[in-house]
């Protein structure tokens, strides 16, 4: 029976030559692809949409690649290894948005749009205000997600390769700019596909090696996990305490997926709606399979590596996967997996940068500044300038946010995507009476409500804004508890064998008195704990409701007969694809 080892020698955190070798091989091959793609990137259709030449299967892999970030690979394995079943709950939430993307979004998006989701929202509405609002929503999502990815990248690469944080960020940022700038969507798609295959392959191998230690039986794996960490490890624990909070987070995850600009953008790279639909089927399969692998890796790491060692290296458990790889496949496998994680980060930030650049050039520059009148040459030029600008911004913000707790940014990204982008998109597709004013107010309302509520929520208001007060209260409580425990321990020591009953009872009374005395003190301290102004950790339920309600009310108050009259033509194109962009 495999035992959790008490101490392990690990190469993690040192400059690992195998990892560097694998990573250099990845960089060289992707740069070659970028060079090849650069020769094929001439028009806006090539730059934004890979010439619409991507097949459903390829796009499925690319979508999965966009979604399977290093944070989800390392983070979910880490969460499962430290929290058990709760990590599994979390991973389910990340998958369930995909069917929604398929049923409500993918085909209309492909049929109605050209390069960005703003094309769809503005299809029969006034171009300029809609494009300005939609681009704002996209750019806020892209930038917050980029910061989270960049800071994560710096930290992870430092942990895995021993590279300084700033160096890691500059390497990531420069490669990302190179892929997008020269190779546009063609290069970004292929980088994503290669990375998805490497990640799925690496995780599959790691799971096979793990299960081989348990006679290929999940039952045995869970038995050992139960032996080490009790049955609590295999049951829902403290992650879901408030049903409303759980519901709110679930909504944001589910509909946020359907509002992420770098995901939506991929539906313009396939030739038609049929391929768009197919690509979601493949993507959902790959992502679901990947989460099942990741959860297995988490449980495997908890048993085969042990929580003590995992949390000793990184408190959040992020190194659970790499540590397990090292334990089972030695330095070679660790090196491979570290390189794959680095490649994953690179691919995801490239997709985000391209989405941001297209919002900037296609929506803001062409749609708003030039009122739809710009040559392809100018548009590609602006997109390339935006790529460099976004890349440099991402590098600078990544360095600026070094050491900050950026986990809340991922929550914010999904809340904004679900509230600012998704409602406007779905109403423009489905609702005849939707107006320009309704769409614009819905987008800004979703954006504002999500951002403000998240700032006032426990995640930011207590954990970040009032960090020092919270820490002071926690310290005071621990101090009182320690002092009280020391006193009780001293009293316990007086209980020696052979002591008369009366003396014994006296000591017990003192112990109870001490316990009783410390309780109100602790309570008083806890009362000083900073309180959030908004009680939920995720604002999704309110911000989504606000976006839908405001969009509906504003549209009903001031109807737009012109937009209404164009709905029929939109329907024909939406369902049948007549007139859809080639």
């Amino acid at each position, binding site marked *: 029976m495999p035992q959790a080892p008490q101490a392990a020698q690990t190469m993690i955190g040192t400059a690992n030559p195998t990892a560097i070798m694998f990573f250099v091989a990845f960089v060289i091959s992707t740069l070659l692809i970028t060079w090849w793609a650069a020769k094929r990137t001439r028009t806006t259709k090539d730059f934004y949409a890979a010439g619409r030449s991507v097949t459903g299967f390829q796009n499925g892999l690319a979508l999965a690649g966009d979604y399977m970030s290093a944070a989800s690979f390392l983070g979910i394995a880490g969460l499962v290894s430290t929290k058990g*079943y709760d990590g*599994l*709950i979390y*991973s*389910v*939430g990340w*998958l*369930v948005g*995909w*069917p*929604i993307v*398929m*049923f*409500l979004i993918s085909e209309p998006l492909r049929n109605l749009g050209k390069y960005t989701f703003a094309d769809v929202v503005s299809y029969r509405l006034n171009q300029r205000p809609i494009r300005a609002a939609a681009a704002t929503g996209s750019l806020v999502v892209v930038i917050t997600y980029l910061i989270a990815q960049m800071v994560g990248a710096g930290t992870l690469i430092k942990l895995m390769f021993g590279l300084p944080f700033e160096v890691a960020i500059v390497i990531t940022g420069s490669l990302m700019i190179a892929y997008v700038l020269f190779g546009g969507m063609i290069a970004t798609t292929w980088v994503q596909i290669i990375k998805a295959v490497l990640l799925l392959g690496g995780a599959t191998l790691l799971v096979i090696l793990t299960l081989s230690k348990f006679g290929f039986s*999940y*039952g045995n794996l*869970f*038995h050992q*996990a*139960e032996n080490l960490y009790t*049955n609590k490890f*295999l*049951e*829902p624990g403290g992650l*879901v305490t*408030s*049903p409303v909070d*759980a*519901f709110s987070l*679930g909504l944001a995850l*589910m509909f946020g997926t359907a509002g992420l600009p770098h995901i939506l953008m991929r539906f313009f790279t396939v030739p038609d709606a*049929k391929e768009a*639909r*197919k690509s*979601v*089927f493949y993507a*959902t*399969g790959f992502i*679901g399979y990947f*989460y*099942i692998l990741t959860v297995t890796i988490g449980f495997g790491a908890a048993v085969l590596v042990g929580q003590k060692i995992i949390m000793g290296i990184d408190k959040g458990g992020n190194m659970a996967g790499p540590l397990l790889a090292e334990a089972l496949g030695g330095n070679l496998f660790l090196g491979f997996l570290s390189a794959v994680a680095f490649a994953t980060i690179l691919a995801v930030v490239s997709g985000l940068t391209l989405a941001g650049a297209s919002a900037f050039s296609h929506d803001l520059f062409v749609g708003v500044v030039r009122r739809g009148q710009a040559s392809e040459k100018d548009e590609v030029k602006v997109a390339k300038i935006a790529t460099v600008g976004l890349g440099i911004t991402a590098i600078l913000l990544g360095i600026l946010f070094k050491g900050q707790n950026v986990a809340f940014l991922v929550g914010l990204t999904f809340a904004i995507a679900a509230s600012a982008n998704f409602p406007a998109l779905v109403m423009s597709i489905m609702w005849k009476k939707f107006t320009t004013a309704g769409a614009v107010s819905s987008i800004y309302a979703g954006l504002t409500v999500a951002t403000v509520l998240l700032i006032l929520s426990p995640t930011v208001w207590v954990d970040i804004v009032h960090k020092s007060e919270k820490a002071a209260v926690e310290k005071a409580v621990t101090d009182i508890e320690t002092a009280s425990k020391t006193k009780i321990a001293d009293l316990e020591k007086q209980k020696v064998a052979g002591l008369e009953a009366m003396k014994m009872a006296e000591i017990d009374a003192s112990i109870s008195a001490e316990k009783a005395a410390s309780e109100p003190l602790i309570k008083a301290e806890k009362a000083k704990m900073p309180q959030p102004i908004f009680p939920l950790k995720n604002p999704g339920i309110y911000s989504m409701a606000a976006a839908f309600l405001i969009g509906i009310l504003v549209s009903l108050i001031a109807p737009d007969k012109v937009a209404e009259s164009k709905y*029929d*033509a939109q*329907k*024909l194109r939406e*369902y*049948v*694809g*007549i007139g859809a962009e080639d």
Partner: protein
Amino acid sequence: MSAKKTAHELLEDPDFRDLSSQKNVVSIILTILELVLYFGFIALIAFNKPFLAQKLSEGSATSIGIPIAVGTIIGSWVLTGIYIQWANSKYDKLVDKVKNKFQ
């Protein structure tokens, strides 16, 4: 073969009406099923933790919660498969039919 129709006439065409209403019904039913699947799972966690904590069988360490969570993932994928199945066998044929009527 019926005569070719303009965009405006096509909107009134029974085949087009059939196509758009079928697509709406299928999309909405599947969306509701997905919502029920996921939020049902969340509701179990929120309101009935002991149920999820039960062991699959006597002597097994695996709790019922594990196959239910994995089932939610697989179920979501199966729903996308059902949609594909419907779209490939029914929807695409209707789309072709309507497209052929277009001038």
